[in-house]
């Protein structure tokens, strides 16, 4: 349990103002009423889509407190567990048949009854329908569902999918909706408030404002949340978010790292996920081999010496300090995580030697490559963009420019919104350096094939014969040990290729008011970083 010490006096810079203001406020009678102790207000970035139809979003789950997936995650380790509607699962040898056993006691909110295999089949159909635009849908689609009884069913997959469980926990792209509710109320019933199986029930969605959840008394799991009402509010403006925290209007706020010190100076606390929730990196556009669509030999970073020089130009200690307030780990390889398949510890050991800050070496490399004379267009376009959950991206772009300038690289910052950038990448014409994130951290093999092989077409950053071979072998293999070996080879290959600029591995952090919140343990294993809402521990009244 992450706990925080309680503070006494806070926000000294405004104390004098408030003292005078209080009397006047009383006189005017317009001060906001104090929030009830067990009602918790959480301020988050607005999600990419505000809807109760999860399958019609790209996977930005804002129904978390109410809706569960087949499997859950351990609050501390983040490992996939059976804390939700299934109590056991089995898989056959070649990862093509996955059988789940549902908990007989699991039931939907309201009067929609226990969870049965019919609900699972119904939910599967919703999430794989033509309207579905979920991330990583290929992992879920194409299965044949065999119902064995009311509480047992098997997913028969068309090919081995060793990472199938990631679709049900972690990425979690199949929420369990009630078939009974759908048959009784239709899609409108879901639009109003879908019944789920979580510790909270959705009571109201206010477009542009947020969602309110109410704790389920006597939850079937036996655990009941200490928070009675969970008011999640969507606010985009960082300055406003900070103000809400300092004014006592919010208990938990997803604050950009840059602003966290403003909160800690006023004695607010920062909570972090127990594990890294996200990796960030800057990608070189189109490291392709001749003949691949989008291949462009004119790009300066097609020369590996430039890629190494750029990596060496960066003082990653400063980067961690400026971007993440010092609370992040340098990332060795994008998509590689100590908990995942194919982790190569020797790369971490070699990292300083190969990627470490060395502006001298960077200049030498540029000289060897004949930069800038030998290049048709030596200017490196760096993309500055904003993406919910990554407020550091614009600063990252500016910092890279600073470091690159230092060693004599010519740069240009281009501002672009995430959608336009995606369109460019989809057209395979993103001839730029762009930021990318990996959240939640994908299983290694999945991440490697999506980002670095033609399996990720159209948005894949690397496409070379050698990597294609590795990716094909990796995906075909059903021997865990062998998969690990191949993944490790792939990581090493990409590492030596300087395939991108790995930046950081970071936890998902929130600023909290220690007067109202004692702690909250969440593993950082889900798409939005937060989960395990019932473990929010409010200060007892």
């Amino acid at each position: 349990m992450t706990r925080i010490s309680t503070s006494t006096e806070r926000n000294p810079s405004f104390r004098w103002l408030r003292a005078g203001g209080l009397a006047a406020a009383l006189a005017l009678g317009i001060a906001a009423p104090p929030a009830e102790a067990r009602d918790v207000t959480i301020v988050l970035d607005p999600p990419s889509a505000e809807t109760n139809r999860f399958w019609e979003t790209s996977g930005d789950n804002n129904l978390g407190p109410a809706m569960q997936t087949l499997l859950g995650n351990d609050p501390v380790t983040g490992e996939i567990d059976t804390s939700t509607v299934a109590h056991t699962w089995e898989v056959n040898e070649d990862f093509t048949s996955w059988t789940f056993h549902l908990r007989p006691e699991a039931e939907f909110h309201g009067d929609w009854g226990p969870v049965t295999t019919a609900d699972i089949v119904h939910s599967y159909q919703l999430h794989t329908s033509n309207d579905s635009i979920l991330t990583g849908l290929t992992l879920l689609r194409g299965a044949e569902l065999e119902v064995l009884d009311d509480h047992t069913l098997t997913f028969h997959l068309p090919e081995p999918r060793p990472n199938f469980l990631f679709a049900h926990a972690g990425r979690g792209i199949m929420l369990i909706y009630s078939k009974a509710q759908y048959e009784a109320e239709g899609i409108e019933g879901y639009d109003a408030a879908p019944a789920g199986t979580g510790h909270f029930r959705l009571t109201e969605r206010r477009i542009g404002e947020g969602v309110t959840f109410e704790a389920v008394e006597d939850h079937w799991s036996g655990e009941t949340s200490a928070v009675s009402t969970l008011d999640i509010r969507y606010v985009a403006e960082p300055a406003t978010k900070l103000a809400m925290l300092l004014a006592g209007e919010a208990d938990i706020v997803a604050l950009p790292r840059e602003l966290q010190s403003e909160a800690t100076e006023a004695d607010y606390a920062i909570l972090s996920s127990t594990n890294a929730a996200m990796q960030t990196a800057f990608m070189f556009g189109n490291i392709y081999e001749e003949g691949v669509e989008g291949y462009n030999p004119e790009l300066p970073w097609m020369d590996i010496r430039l890629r190494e020089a750029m990596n060496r130009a960066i003082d990653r200690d400063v980067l961690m300090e400026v971007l993440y307030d010092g609370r992040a780990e340098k990332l060795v390889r994008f998509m590689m995580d100590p908990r995942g398949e194919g982790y190569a510890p020797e790369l971490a050991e070699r990292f300083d030697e190969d990627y470490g800050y060395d502006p001298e070496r960077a200049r030498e490399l540029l000289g060897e490559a004949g930069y800038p004379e030998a290049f048709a267009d030596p200017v490196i376009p760096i993309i500055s963009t904003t993406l919910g959950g990554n407020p550091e991206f614009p600063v990252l772009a500016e910092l890279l420019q600073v470091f690159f300038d230092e060693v004599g690289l010519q740069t240009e910052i281009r501002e672009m919104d995430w959608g336009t950038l995606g369109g460019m990448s989809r057209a395979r014409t993103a001839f730029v350096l762009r930021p990318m994130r990996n959240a939640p951290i994908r299983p290694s093999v999945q991440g490697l094939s999506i980002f670095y092989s033609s399996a990720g077409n159209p948005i894949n950053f690397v496409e070379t014969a050698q990597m294609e071979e590795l990716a094909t072998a990796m995906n075909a293999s059903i021997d865990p040990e062998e998969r690990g070996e191949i993944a490790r080879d792939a990581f090493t290959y990409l590492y030596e290729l300087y395939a991108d600029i790995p930046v950081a591995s970071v936890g998902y952090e929130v600023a909290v008011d220690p007067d109202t919140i004692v702690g909250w343990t969440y593993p950082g294993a889900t798409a939005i970083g937060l989960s395990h809402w019932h473990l929010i521990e409010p200060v007892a009244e």
Partner: protein
Amino acid sequence: MASSRLPVIPLALLVLVLLGPALLADLIAPHDPYQSHLRNRLQPPVFAGGGWEFILGTDRLGRCILSRILHGARYAVAISAVGIVLGAALGSALGLLAGYARGWTDAVVMRLVDISFALPSVLLALALAVVFGPSFSAVLAVIVFVLWASFARQVRGEVLSLRERDFVARARVAGASHLRILSRHILPNVANTITVMATLQLGVIILLEATLSFLGIGVPRPTPTWGLLVADGRQFVVSAWWISFFPGLAILLSVLSINLLGDWLRDRLDPRLQQV
């Protein structure tokens, strides 16, 4: 009636905050406005505990705020000067044409004016930024779009009444060409209106630039436009208030003095102009 006394204080402020720095930024700025001093990030200004090296402090990348403001003046002048010249020229030309030619030309121009007023400029700016990517020219395009219509409407109104006046009729009888009537007889009579309007709109442009930066669709970083400086520092209101405060002050003082000058000009040149 109008006071003829030159408004000295606004004029002095304008020179001090806007024109002077714009001309002399290279000479007087203590640092390169783009140069990061990563070891000196978020330094407070000298009177709030900082050192003399960074008089008004530094931003989150350790760039000198004072130097950025001084260089920012250059962009403020460039954007507002080019914007106002283009906007006023386009608007006035169309206004002259519409008011003088009347008939179909007038109808078409006035519909364009309607359309231009009816489309919310900020939304248009957002769409343009998404299409072309934020850039200096995109910002200018939005400014011209916002400005031209009010010039066109005002000038057209005045031309409509001027063309009925005796001196125009006399010129026509004397066989003067349309071009000559427009340039010699009508334009000089609307010149004051255009001048006063242009002055008053300068402030609007500076504010618009700031708004576009706030929405992330202004001149791209790291160009130190005032709007970007304020927008970029707005989150650090408590711990590093100087990042946005001083650029904000520069905007406030410049726009304030421009507006005071504009008022004074109006009183002198065109007291009946009710443009806002």
